[in-house]
C-alpha cells in the first residue's frame, strides 16, 4: 500500500521516511513527541520512565513504520504503541512509584486556582494509583487528558462502550476509596 497525503501531512512525511529520508523521521518525532511523552508521564509519574517509554515508542514505531497502513490517523497508531509500551513497561517492572514520597517532596505545580487539600489529594492519588491497570488508563486518558471514548477505544484496542464501562467502574472505585472521607470532598 502506498501512503499518499498532502505535503507536510503525516502520511506524506511517512512516505518520505519509508523512502529513506532521515530528516522526515525527525519531523514526525517533533510533531508527536510532546503528546507521547505527556501520556507516558501521566501514566508513569516518573521522568526517567516517561523518557524511556517515549524512546521505546518511537524506536518501535520507526521500526514498524512500513506496517502502518493508514487506516487510522498516525497519531492514533503511535498513541496505541505508546500506551502499550507504557503499560507493558510498568507491568514488567512490577514497580509502583512511591506516591507518598513524591507527594511530600513534590514542588507545587504552577499556580493553581483551587488546590486540593493535601490529605485529600494524597488519598485521591493513592486511589487512582490503586485502580486496576485498564481502569486507570481509561480514567487518566479521559478525565485528565481529555480523550474521547472513541479515541481511547482506538488507543487501547477496545470498544468505546468498554471504555465507558471501565470509566464508570473506575469512578465507582474512587468513590468507595474516598467514601470514609466523604465529608471532606462532598462539600
Amino acid at each position, binding site marked *: 500500500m502506498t501512503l499518499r497525503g498532502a505535503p507536510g501531512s503525516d502520511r506524506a512525511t511517512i512516505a518520505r521516511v519509508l523512502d*529513506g529520508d532521515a530528516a522526515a523521521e525527525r519531523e514526525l518525532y517533533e510533531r508527536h513527541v510532546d503528546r507521547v511523552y505527556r501520556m507516558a508521564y501521566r501514566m508513569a509519574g516518573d*521522568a526517567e520512565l516517561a523518557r524511556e517509554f517515549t524512546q521505546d515508542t518511537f524506536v518501535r514505531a520507526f521500526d514498524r513504520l512500513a506496517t502502518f497502513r493508514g487506516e487510522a490517523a498516525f497519531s492514533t497508531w503511535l498513541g496505541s504503541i505508546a500506551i502499550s509500551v507504557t503499560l507493558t513497561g510498568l507491568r514488567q517492572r512490577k514497580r509502583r512509584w512511591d506516591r507518598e514520597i513524591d507527594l511530600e517532596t513534590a514542588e507545587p505545580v*504552577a499556580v493553581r486556582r483551587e488546590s486540593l487539600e493535601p490529605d*485529600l489529594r494524597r488519598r485521591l492519588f493513592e486511589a487512582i494509583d490503586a485502580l486496576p491497570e485498564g481502569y486507570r488508563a481509561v480514567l487518566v486518558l479521559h*478525565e*485528565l487528558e481529555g480523550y474521547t471514548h472513541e479515541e481511547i477505544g482506538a488507543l487501547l484496542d477496545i470498544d468505546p462502550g468498554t471504555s465507558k464501562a471501565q470509566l464508570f467502574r473506575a469512578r465507582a472505585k474512587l468513590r468507595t476509596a*474516598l467514601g470514609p472521607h466523604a465529608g471532606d470532598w462532598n462539600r
Partner: protein
Amino acid sequence: MNEDPLDRLLDQARDQYNPPPPAPREDMWAAIEARRGGRTGMQRWRRGMSWRQPGTIRKLAWPLGIAALLAVGFGLGRLTQDGKVAPGRALGPTTPPEMEGSTSVALAGAALLHLSRTETFLTGFRLEAQARVPDPALLAGARDLLGTTRLLLDTPDLKDQRVRQLLRELEVVLAQVAQLQAEPTREDADLIVRELDEQGVLPRLRTSIPAGPAANISGES
C-alpha cells in the same frame, strides 16, 4: 444542576496528578538515533529489502559512502607514496581544521567521518547508560566502530598524531562497550561513562570534528 463532587475533585487533579514536565526532546532524540543506528541496517536486511526497492540505495548511501571513502583513502595513501602536494591545499572553498602530517584528503575525510560517527554513538551510549542498562542492540554498534578504528590505526598514512592518539583511546572505550554487549550491566556501563567523562573523550572528539559538511576536509591529495 448539581455538580458531581467527584468531577470537581478530578478537575482539580488534572493539574496535580503526575503533571508532565516539558519533554526532553533533544536528549530523547539522541538516544533514539543511537539505538536505531545500531540495528536499523540489520533489521532492514532481515526484512529482505531489495536493491531494486525505491529508496534502498539512498538508505545505504551513508554506510556505503564511508566504506568507499575508507577504501579510496587507503588506496590513495598507498598510491601516492611520497607524492605530497603543497601544504595547505584544501578541497572546497573553506578552510576547516587540517590534519597534521601528510594524511591524504580521502583518508582524512574517512577518519573525520569515523570520528563523527563514533561521537554520535558514544553520546547515545552515555545517555542510555545514565538512564538504564544499555540495550544490546545499541551496544552492537560498538563492534563495527571498533573494526574501523583498528583499520584506521593500522593505516601508516594516517599520520596526524593527535587523531591517532584519539583513535587509540577510542579503541579502548569501544572495546569495553563491545564487551558489555555479552552481559550488559548498569554498573559496568557506569564505569565506562565515568572513564569517558574523566578523560574528556567526548569534548576532545567534538573539537576534532570540524563543523559543517565533511566534504570540507583539507589534507593532502
